[in-house]
């Protein structure tokens, strides 16, 4: 009897095994985020008490109060009302990311349409070139970008981040794939109804590829909101740095607000992610390199 019961328990465990594994992996994601959120409600004294050993190397070991002993919003208030540096950097990030996104749409969408819809000499080679540029690590084009930005007197300006960003080929690739999925008969019908190529592009193709365009925008946002390499290389003046590069410095200057700053930095990306997760998934699936 007991043996049968054991076998049943083992079978039950086997069935649950996968789910248990998933939950454990999920905890690896949620726990750090949760800890970050909790710590953002610590007051400055509590931060020093708990993490002084790490942040000030005063010899104590780190500990965590699962619930802040004196929960406070002081960090957030101080950050939002009283720290000019943080605002400047946040604004820098916006000034660099949004022009890139707008430029990528204005220039990348027509280019994607050219690859998806037209036949012209050299199309295949050019598309392969775009794919190659898409997978090149930043370091490969680092010197060449530096040389050209230097010639154009763009070094140490926001333009040094924005202009090369606009012509990143990753979004062209993803949007091309969604354009290709528009059924041909639909475009032919539009042409028969007397729509010119520009009208077909503007009123048929672009509205139909909207999800693909959105997914490219979301992927680009996550990428550039997180930019480290480009600003580090091309921006010398610290007051032009985006938040992504500046944030680790806040920890040193103002410990009381460092957790709040981390949370606020995360917020735009997380909100966009939660809003557009299905687009993001489509975009990732489309990034599979098969043509």
């Amino acid at each position: 009897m007991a043996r049968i019961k054991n076998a049943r328990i083992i079978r039950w465990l086997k069935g649950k095994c996968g789910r248990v594994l998933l939950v454990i992996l999920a905890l690896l994601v949620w726990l750090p985020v949760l800890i970050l959120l909790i710590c953002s409600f610590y007051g400055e004294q509590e931060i020093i008490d708990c993490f002084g050993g790490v942040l000030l190397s005063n010899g104590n070991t780190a500990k965590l109060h699962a619930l802040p002993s004196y929960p406070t919003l002081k960090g957030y208030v101080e950050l939002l009302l009283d720290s000019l540096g943080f605002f400047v950097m946040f604004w820098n990030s916006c000034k660099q990311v949004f022009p890139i996104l707008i430029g990528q749409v204005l220039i990348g969408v027509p280019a994607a349409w050219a690859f998806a819809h037209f036949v012209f000499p050299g199309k295949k080679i050019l598309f392969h070139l775009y794919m190659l540029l898409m997978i090149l690590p930043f370091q490969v084009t680092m010197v060449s970008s530096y040389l050209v930005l230097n010639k154009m007197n763009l070094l140490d300006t926001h333009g040094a981040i924005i202009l090369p960003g606009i012509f990143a080929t990753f979004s062209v690739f993803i949007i091309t794939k969604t354009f290709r999925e528009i059924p041909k008969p639909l475009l032919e019908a539009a042409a028969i109804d007397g729509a010119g190529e520009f009208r077909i592009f503007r009123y048929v193709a672009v509205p139909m590829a909207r999800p693909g365009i959105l997914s490219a925008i979301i992927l680009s946002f996550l990428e550039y909101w997180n930019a480290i390499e480009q600003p580090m290389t091309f921006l010398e003046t610290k007051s032009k740095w985006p938040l992504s590069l500046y944030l680790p410095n806040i920890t040193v200057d103002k410990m009381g607000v460092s957790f709040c700053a981390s949370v606020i930095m995360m917020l735009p990306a997380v909100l966009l992610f939660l809003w557009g997760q299905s687009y993001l998934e489509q975009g990732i699936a489309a990034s599979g390199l098969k043509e």
Partner: protein
Amino acid sequence: MKAIRNWMQPFRQSKQKWIPTVRNKKVPKWVLGLLFLAPSLLGVAVFVLVPFADVVRRSFLDAMGKEFAGISNYESVFQNEAFQLAAGNTIKFILICIPLLLLVSLVCALLINGLKGYQEFFKTTFLFPMAIPVASVVLLWRLFLDRNGFFNEGVRLFGLSPVDWMNSEKAFGVLVFTYLWKNVGYDMILWLAGLAAIPKERYEAASVDGAGRWQTFRYVTLPGLRSSVFVIGILSLVNCFKVFREAYLIAGDYPHESIYMMQHLFNNWFVSLDIQKMTAASVVMAIVMLVIMSLVWYRNERSQE
């Protein structure tokens, strides 16, 4: 409706004759295509292609940028000790991380695919790290990994001596974990897309033939995913180079030598304005990426035939 449209056709055309549109001027279609592409191509040419051609040229010149120096720049790169260390570490990192990432994300994808409910919840969970900026987690990583940090608290509980995670060989493992943490979601979505593309009939046929779960996986799922492996591998490679962000923000310019990567090397050459070495190394790296990409194209061509 169609009848009306056909009947209207002559009127429409006659009306349109008077509207000067591009269509009436009969611009050849291929020219239009190039026009659509032109702004993007121009930008790519100005910001990437032309300067890179210049870099290739410079890589064969001497330090003054005047005399032809043959392959001496390339020789000095390959003989450079920092280069050997960085290249070795980068290759080791790639060889360990990509198979590991492919495996972990495949397991996640299969588990999620087998779930009845909560699929969306777990997808969101594993994709979430993608949305978290590196800068936001750096502070947290420090709290965990510092000599006085949380991990060492755990280590002490087991009566072992604390480890200085970022300043020892362990740093490499930390970086591998960070890479997995960030990228499992991305690869998992690609795997799920691959799984969804396997025709249902094959599973039905397998179950009719009495195949068990393992056999179904071995003879239906795995072969169905074969074409995805390669593509997912390449995209994971691209993301491998981005792990530099974590490495740099946590450990700075000169991290422990076990995680000194190509990206650190480029950075330090850049700071010391060692343009000669950088140009040669860029060309080498570009060639490596071109070779890898050519394999993708070759496989794409073959699968279409």
